[in-house]
């Protein structure tokens, strides 16, 4: 009886641990592209998202953050961010936004919902722009990042 109990416990533990491992190695979030690069004492990460929400709506986002280790830096955000909708290579919508930064923190992000404009051909949503990182004692950097998805 005791041996059986131990086998059950071991099985439960293996299952629980495998769930934790899956969490740690989970694939990137759909509709998101992230790039990280060493910057100062941390890593500066730039991320853009484009996601289909429903048949007539979509969402675009931007995120700047530090990781490994998560570090508060002097300036974090983006210097420009543009969301664009293409209908077969012609521009049907554009939302151009200026700079947005936070100070002495480790993450800045934003996202908005958009309508899908009329298109009987093929639609593509773009989220693009330069991120903005500045850590005291290091060069101010403005890395570019873009991401696109076909909008159904």
């Amino acid at each position, binding site marked *: 009886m005791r041996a059986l109990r131990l086998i059950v*416990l071991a099985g*439960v*533990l293996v*299952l*629980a641990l495998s*769930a934790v491992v899956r969490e740690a190695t989970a694939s990137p979030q759909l509709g998101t592209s992230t790039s990280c690069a060493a910057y100062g004492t941390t890593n500066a990460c730039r991320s853009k998202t484009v996601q289909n*929400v*429903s*048949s*007539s*709506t979509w969402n675009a986002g931007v995120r700047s953050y530090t990781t490994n280790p998560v570090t508060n830096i002097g300036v974090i955000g983006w210097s420009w961010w543009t*969301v664009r909708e*293409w*209908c*077969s*290579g*012609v*521009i*049907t*919508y*554009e*939302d*151009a936004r200026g700079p947005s930064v936070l100070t002495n923190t480790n993450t800045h992000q934003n996202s*908005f*919902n*958009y*309508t899908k*404009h*009329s*298109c*009987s*051909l*093929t639609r*593509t949503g*773009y989220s693009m722009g330069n991120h903005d990182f500045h850590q005291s004692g290091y060069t101010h950097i403005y890395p570019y990042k873009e991401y*696109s998805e*076909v909008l*159904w």
Partner: protein
Amino acid sequence: MKLRTTARASVLFLVVSVALSIGAAANGTSHEDGVSSGPLAPSVDPTGGPSSVAKSADEIRSFIAAWTEPLLNQSGWLHIREEIRQEGLALGLLPDGRPIPANYILDAWCLTGEDGLVTEAVVEMYDLDGERVQASVFAGHEWTNVTFQITFPGEAWRPSLDHGMSESIANRADGRISGFARSQSSQSGRPIVETSTFEAFTEAIRLEGYALDVEQITNRAVFDAHSHGLGSFETTYRSEDGLEKTVAGVLVLAVERVDEPPDAILSLLREVSQ
């Protein structure tokens, strides 16, 4: 004792996980009944149960496919011309600083294979005075907007001649729409079939470029009952205060197979392809 505590926690974790999985599965099953997930509110088809919803969806898709499939699934040139009118939507600016026109003509010449996929295309946007606003070329898995000299990658694609109506209904279980409807009537003495899809949001949603929060979006397509061809397509927003506004209307001017596009279109295609 510590091991027992860990084991109890693991068992609890598993029980909660299983319970959540069952909940998710239950939600998934309910999709088949026309109930959507995500930001859309659940909707129940008043006409009957799951089988009648599925049957109704199949009927609409078959009706539309009888028009689109013969048009799309052949090699050669497809010409699409539509007039788009929009109201109440802020559309932003083109790269040259001019506003993106709310009302325009979209003229597209697409070279398709027998699978209906477009491998080459020239697409032009004209304002209603006939001035070309922008043009693009698709060739070699790449889009080139020749007006603004912007290039980006693209895959061979299939035109959505019904503006996504059939696709939305087919994928309703993914939460693309929360319901759909079909009715028959006549317009200017001609029998028509109207098909609508609804996206009802659980909470009114803010859409950039529109002044009011939107609680429901309705897309309505009008097809000719005999030819099954799409005549018009419109999008209506219902805002929180119950106000309904048609924000976009499309008038289909031409969807036709042609031997060859005009010389100017072929020249533009050649110019970009080289």
